[in-house]
């Protein structure tokens, strides 16, 4: 049970972080699914199965952080492009500030108390 719970926490955490990353990408320009997955891989998320982004995109659209439009792509067929909304921009800002705060704290804690566990 203990491991399952900790897995749940880490998958929840990953989802939150992924959502933040998706917002950062989509904020730059409209993206479609495969482009997003490429963007993530480029920044070290190669091992994250890209199937995870689809439920995430659907839930983000439902929360009105993003919206989608069918647009012709470079290769020809129409693709579902995602655009950021005003709500999405706010969520992005709060994600970045929360993340900075969190990573600063964790880094500090590791530096001062947890050095020996680093590999």
């Amino acid at each position, binding site marked *: 049970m203990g491991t399952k719970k900790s897995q749940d926490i880490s998958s929840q955490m990953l989802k939150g972080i992924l959502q933040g990353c998706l917002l950062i990408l989509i904020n730059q320009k409209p993206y*479609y*699914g*495969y482009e997003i*997955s490429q963007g993530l891989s480029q920044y070290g998320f190669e091992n994250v*199965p*890209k*199937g*995870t982004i*689809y*439920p995430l995109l*659907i*839930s983000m659209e*439902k929360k009105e952080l993003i919206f989608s439009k*069918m647009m012709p792509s470079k*290769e020809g*067929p129409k*693709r*579902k492009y995602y655009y950021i909304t005003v709500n999405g921009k706010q969520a992005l800002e709060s994600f970045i500030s929360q993340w900075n705060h969190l990573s600063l704290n964790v880094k500090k804690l590791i530096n001062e108390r947890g050095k020996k566990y680093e590999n």
Partner: protein
Amino acid sequence: MKTEQLIEQNNELREKLNTENKKYYENLLLYIRAKAVFQKDEDVETTLLEILNDLIEAQNNGQDAESYFGKEPEKLAAEIIDNLPKSFFDTFKLACYIFFGYITFFSIPQMIDPNSKMDFGRILLMGITVFFFALLVLWVLGNETYQKNKLVKGVNYSILVILFLTFIIGGVLIKTPLTIHLPGLSGILTIIGIFIISTVIYIIERKNLPFSSAVYLYEIGFSVIGIIIRIPVFEKYLYHGHSQNLAWIVLIFLVFILIINVRTIWKILKANK
């Protein structure tokens, strides 16, 4: 885009996947379509097409479906369905199609003989049962796609077979006092009415149901026989109050339909191999 266009595009694009990727994607597609009973069809098909387009692009870049999408498609498919907004309208629509589809399919053959009574109560009762039965079938199919355990698979199938048999037997044994006698013009008008409903259902749902064309062909035939037999001129020569004559006409018709459908049945058998 309309749901039908999305499905059509999906069917075309799917051919671009190689054998292995196609298998992976079709499992995902079957699972999502079967499980997403309460979701809006258009949302479901848009997401399926989106994933297909991305898998094709991944394939073109040398990545196979499993390494792109992940090793746990069932879990992700369930998450996708959970996140799609539920549509009560579409569920209601599905319930209506199944319900009316059943009623039209079983009532027209019962109405052919102008002298026999149609047990409308039984058809209504079985129509309601078939609605819940269909939901169960969808649920079992949804579980089955990713079910690797053969025992569980076997149990699932036996449950379906047992339910189906109970259902057929129940359909014959149940008798209700709600019977209607429909001779002459009243019968003709009722048959035309039911036939129009089944035509509408056929036009809307034909792409989603593999056997719909064959079923519809039977409906046309039964309707035509039911109407002709009630027209006085034909009644005199073909029927003359003898149900036996009618049985022969229906038998000839059934054999005729079977011959027409041989190719379709053959195709379905071959596809399932």
